[in-house]
């Protein structure tokens, strides 16, 4: 019997298998339980793919979306509904980057201890970083034009305003989105689009020049309305004559920046575009943004010159651009961007503090010299405009990026008005409206 007795220990192998399997499961549960609970077929919280629990608020606690009696309901103000459409998301999950999709685990109220169970069965609450009032102001200012308005608190990384236009009222979703009006309506253009940056890209060339060309400020440049590079001409917005680098940025002189681009070379510009976070995809609260693009053209070529002034094959994602200007505003350190209320957890140094301060000063000079301080009353604005040619006979996109130097309102912004024409005039006005709303709240 002793032998038989000892061999019964073989049963322990089964116990061991159970222990190992169970440990493995518990490990997976701890790591992936959140995703599992957020599976759209989890009928505890989803009904036909629609999240049926959870409340989304803006930074001031205004309810943007909640659930009542098994129905998804939104803010009562139609302007807020429309302007926060992309931030909140629609109930059908068409807008994949909306809070209803991205923050589903939080809205479910998932935690590994209680699972998706909440005593009142209403799920969890998500407080977004956006201010619905600012979104509404942006919506009014855009006046139905397509584009992007986004404002970031450059000290905390919080996106306080995020409008993607065109949009619609989530209560009345369009039946047919194939019309030109609704082109790309499910995309949050701030996160998921990339635009030709136009002259706003001169900030990148400037950053490289400041760090690579020691005598930049001692130089004077000659602008004759166009410059010949490799047998082809880069035309300028005007004939600026003899100017220094400050004035060159203020008048957005193509000749000067084309020459600087050729002098710096494709390798250097490519490295700067990468290091400043403008080419790769970045993450905003876990959402991967669309990648930008910088194609390095041959050294000495006219393509290289165009690439240094934001044309050629350049494209930049608005969120990445906002992160870049926020970095300038914040002394060279870009805070990690977040769509949730509260300071983000990380930051990256993207340029030297001295470089950032110099660029900021020059961007402020732009306003004084070109855009007109009177157009931005009460704001200590630093900005750069862009007018990006899109071809095909359409009006160029208007871009306006920058920030205000204001201890109480440390806001950076990016405004893009598609086919809006002149950058500073069209997009600048939108920026002013939103910033005034932000400062004078």
């Amino acid at each position, binding site marked *: 019997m002793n032998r038989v007795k000892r061999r019964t220990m073989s049963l322990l192998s089964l116990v061991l298998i*159970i222990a190992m399997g169970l440990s493995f499961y518990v490990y997976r549960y701890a790591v992936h339980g959140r995703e599992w609970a957020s599976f759209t077929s989890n009928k505890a919280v989803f009904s036909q793919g629609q999240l049926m629990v959870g409340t989304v608020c803006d930074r001031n606690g205004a309810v943007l979306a909640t659930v009542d009696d098994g129905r998804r309901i939104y803010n009562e103000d139609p302007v807020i509904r429309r302007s926060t459409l992309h931030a909140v998301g629609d109930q059908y999950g068409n807008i994949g980057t909306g809070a209803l999709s991205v923050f589903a685990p939080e809205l479910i109220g998932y935690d*590994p201890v209680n699972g998706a169970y909440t005593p009142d069965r209403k799920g969890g609450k998500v407080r977004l970083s956006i201010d619905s009032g600012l979104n509404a102001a942006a919506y009014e200012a855009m006046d139905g034009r397509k584009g992007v308005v986004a404002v970031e608190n450059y000290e905390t990384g919080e996106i306080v305003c995020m409008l993607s236009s065109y949009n619609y009222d989530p209560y009345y979703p369009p039946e047919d989105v194939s019309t030109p009006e609704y082109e790309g309506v499910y995309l949050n253009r701030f996160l998921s689009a990339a635009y030709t940056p136009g002259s706003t890209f001169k900030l990148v060339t400037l950053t490289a020049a400041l760090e690579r060309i020691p005598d930049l400020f001692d130089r004077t440049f000659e602008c004759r309305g166009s410059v010949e590079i490799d047998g082809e001409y880069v035309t300028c917005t005007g004939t600026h004559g003899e100017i220094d680098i400050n004035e060159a940025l203020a008048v957005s002189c193509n000749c000067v920046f084309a020459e600087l681009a050729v002098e710096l070379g494709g390798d250097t510009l490519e490295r700067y575009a990468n290091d400043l976070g403008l080419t790769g995809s970045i993450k905003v609260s876990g959402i991967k943004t669309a990648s930008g693009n910088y194609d390095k053209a041959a050294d000495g070529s006219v393509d290289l010159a165009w690439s240094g002034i934001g044309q050629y094959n350049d494209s930049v994602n608005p969120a990445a651009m906002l992160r870049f200007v926020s970095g300038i505003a914040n002394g060279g350190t870009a805070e990690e961007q977040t769509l949730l209320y509260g300071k983000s957890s990380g930051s990256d140094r993207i340029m030297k503090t001295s470089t950032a301060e110099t660029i900021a000063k020059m961007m402020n000079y732009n306003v004084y010299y070109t855009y007109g301080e009177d157009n931005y009353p009460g704001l200590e604005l630093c900005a750069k405009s862009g007018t990006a040619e899109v071809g095909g006979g359409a009006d160029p996109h208007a871009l306006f990026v920058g920030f205000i130097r204001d201890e109480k309102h440390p806001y950076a912004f990016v405004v893009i008005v598609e086919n809006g024409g002149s950058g500073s005039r069209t997009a600048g006005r939108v920026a002013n409206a939103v910033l005034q709303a932000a400062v004078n709240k």
Partner: protein
Amino acid sequence: MENILESVSSGFANYITFILRFVTPLLSGLILYRCGKSLLRGRGESETWGYLCLPNGGRIYLNHWENIIGRNRSCDALMEFPTVSRIHGALIRDSRGGWKVYDLNSKSGILVNGEKAERSAPVKSGDILTMGGVQLTFMDLNEEQLARQAEARTKPGTIVRPGITLMLLTELQLLLGIQHYIAMGEEADIMIPLSFAVLAGIMWVYYLFMRILRRRGVEIETLAFFLCTLGLSVTATAVPSDMIKQLVFVTAGLFVFLCLGFFLRDLERARKLRWPIAVVGVLMLTATLVIAKSTNGAKNWISIAGFTFQPSEFVKICFVFAGATTMDRLFAKRNLILFMAFSALCVVTLGLMSDFGTALVFFAAYLIIAFIRSGDFATIFLSAGGAALGGFLILTVKPYIKDRFSTWGKAWQFANEGGYQQTRTMAAAASGGLFGVGAGNGWLHTVFAAETDMVFGLICEEHGLITGVFAIGALVLLALFAIKAAATARSSFYVIGACAAVTMLLFQLILNVFGSLDILPFTGVTFPFVSRGGSSIIACWGLLAFVKAVDTRQNASFAIKLPKRKRKKDTFYTIQDGYDFSGYDPERHEV
């Protein structure tokens, strides 16, 4: 303000659930702890059935019905004489008290009262056994001595009182009934809580019956009742109209359990009938193969007079019978080969029915039995190799089986195809967290086969991961108990029986739980006692009888005969005399 009022009125049921959902894991844990403590505490007292007197006056106690004699250290009766063979012979008692000595191919043979024993010879108290020139006097214990021994041994149920454990389980049953009743809202059916009460009633009647039989060890049944309670909760969620049916199955299972337990009391009878039982098993499988109708791929259901049942479930019991054997046969090769052939027949038949889960369960039981019988790793590896080859052949012949395995480990990639059930199981289980969403509040039951193949997910969803782990723990406890009980078991028949039964239960559990969680391929076997389904529950209770039959703790198991009651208080015997047959310290005691 409006919010508060609203949540008070509509949230009453929610808040009851909120509290009760913590109670289920708590009670489950307590029940498991009490059963575990009662089953596993202490070293386990062995019994003494006789002893051998050495020429020098020393004694060798016989602590089992089957005792190997020899000078190998693993022998039960260790005789350290160079003239004695390593494994010399066996002294075996039958359940009626008769002893036999077996010569296990020893060099010098065995003499009984001077006469050579050819293979085996009966022995009685006072006989002189000669082995390798050493003379031993064999002494049997008579009824009265056995009764005294029984009196002196610790009885279970004194430290951990079974009544209290059962009360905790009753509490769990009633609370589950209430939770389900509340969760059903407007469709609330009084039948649901009533069914739980009836289950509690069945349990208490059983307990009283055991007390009448002077049996105090009901931990094993309590664990089964605990699992059946979860099973009833699963039924209440998934098919509330089947509550009575489920109760009938549990009662039928209990009946089979009792019958088998009483049957196993008599080792001679059980041993004699094991091959006829095995033949019945084979016939059942063959009949299934011929007349069964195919359901969901597997052809394993038989429908007779409106009752559908799964014969392969009952064949499990036959299989355990065929595998179990007493020590004297253990050394006969023919026996093992016959059993291997029988096992192969069962596994192949099940394979032909496309019931691969059950085939695997049988194969696992075969491996454990073969190992316990032979102790030979070569046999095990050979068998496993053969099975792997067979499995490979099946995969090439039946490509649709391969499809099922192709999504294994990739459930989330094929969430709406091959991984449909697994992803739902995981999503629901994650929803439940550690404490569950409360009985009757889940949704997984709307998915096909949730109450059988994915029942672990359903338990985790409604009662939480903790309760799910406890449900697994209940079966693991049975395995640990089987190992512990083997140390003091009477016959290898019972040890092998219990181990084979536990293997089947555990392996089924492994396939069920880890299959539904995409850790193993999804094979669609049941979770013992918990999954809904008649054949499965009845068969599980049947298998449990084998575990009951290995429980030799004093007055614990009805499957073990008690010695006859002493007619009156002994005049010359008191416990203070230190009369003890446990055999641990023979020097101290005189008979």
